[in-house]
């Protein structure tokens, strides 16, 4: 998730208040919109992003760190954190998201290191293997995010037309 949960909810409420309500005089529809705003305010207080997909991404990263550690044995390399980084049942999504973002930065440093001229000259086979592994692992992480992304509605969003809303999944 690139936007925060709270900001998403605030943005939906702002869009309804600034763009939908001023352009609708129908009492029933206005009542529906106000009810949606009330429900969204409730969700803001009671809910958050799902922790599961974030946890899954952190585990994919941890597997990559462990594999790179083996392949880079004996080489001078950037920091590789000890895995697993999460023990037990942590459900705080913000904490897990922080670990995921930290992990991404470390993976980026490792990828830049593995494709650098020095490592390529000294250990071409290991460097290629590490690059391949890291790129594959990062793509696996993206697949986790794709699984929680609804189908695109760009046509309707850009043009404001179309009766059929895309379904999630």
């Amino acid at each position, binding site marked *: 998730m690139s*936007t925060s949960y709270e900001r998403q909810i605030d*943005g939906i409420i702002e869009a309804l208040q600034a763009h939908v309500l001023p352009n609708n005089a129908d009492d029933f529809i206005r009542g529906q919109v106000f009810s949606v705003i009330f429900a969204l305010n409730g969700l803001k207080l009671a809910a958050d992003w799902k922790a599961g997909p974030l946890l899954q991404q952190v585990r994919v990263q941890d597997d990559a760190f462990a594999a790179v550690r083996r392949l880079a044995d004996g080489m001078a390399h950037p920091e590789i954190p000890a895995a697993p980084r999460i023990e037990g049942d942590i459900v705080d999504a913000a904490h897990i998201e922080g670990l995921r973002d930290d992990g991404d930065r470390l993976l980026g440093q490792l990828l830049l290191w593995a494709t650098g001229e020095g490592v390529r000259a000294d250990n071409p086979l290991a460097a290629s293997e590490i690059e391949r592994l890291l790129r594959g692992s990062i793509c696996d992480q993206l697949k986790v995010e794709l699984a929680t992304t609804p189908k695109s509605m760009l046509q309707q969003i*850009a043009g404001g037309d179309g009766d059929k809303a895309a379904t999630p999944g």
Partner: protein
Amino acid sequence: MQDATTRTDGSPAPGPVRGPDTVDDDTVRAALGRYLTRTSGHRTEITHFSRKSSGFSWITFGFEARSASGADRMLILRVGPPNGLFAPYSVQPQVHALQSLAGTGVPVPALVAFEQGGAEIGHPFFICEHIEGAVPAPWAASMLADGHKRAIALQFLSILGKLHRIDARATPLATRPDKSDERAEVGAVAAWRASLARPTARYYPLLDWGGKWLQDNCPLPPRRTIVHGDYRIGNFIERDGTIVAILDWELTHVGDPHEDLAWALMPTFNARSRKLYGVIERAEVIDLYQRASGITVSARSLAFYEAFALYQAAAIQMCAVRAFEVDRFNDMRMAVMASQMPSIIRAFERALEAAA
């Protein structure tokens, strides 16, 4: 008033400005009336004022200017919002493009006026003529007949060829605002890298690494041309089977012409098809473009710029996230754009593999 007929490019570059925090339609309409009254010297009434839904960056309004002098004109106002997708905004690229291309074979709307300082409106803006016609939606499988689409696609390529034949050095677009010695096309990659490196953007390792690869491996252009920067189906107006105006010049710059060709070929802008507008195969597109532009297309450069197109697309999504999350831009479309990041980055990774 910075009148399009009197303002020349020798003037110093105006800096980006920040006006009021939001763009309120009623406020803009009233300010526009005051502005046109002052600058024309005649009381001007604004009628048929409406915000257009299209466009994710500049806010576009259509209106009629009714002047006491009796001249009624249908016009377009484009305002750069202070918290928009590419804020802070400068009118310069679009103003320079519309000025440079007037009277060439590249059809553009006539520029009427512009104000980098915002004048009465408070935000950078420009006004151009309204052109009747339709803007095709690039994302939809169009209901238009294939023959019609092919005729439009052929014109689309012919106009691109004409654009790339123009001597960019003779236009104000050739003046780099940063005065850098860096190659122009490398500068374009570097600018997007800098955008992605802003501390509030989420870090994506493949974008960091891939951006460095693009900068390190940027090919030499066959020649440096005016690059539209967003040349695609959906950024023109067609009327009765003819393209009558090319729109949205905000990303225009001088660089490698392959950049426009690669952007136009992105399946996203062709209803998910690998064919241009869903009707012209890639090989024929290249052949037609080469004949129109006089430029020999390099397969390697085209592959590079297809990867770069996806990198830019990812950077633009991140600009949207920033506009929504940090600058509190009140447009839910910005929040939704963020959800496209995983699919764009995966496509970028595959495109890099092809370009390497």
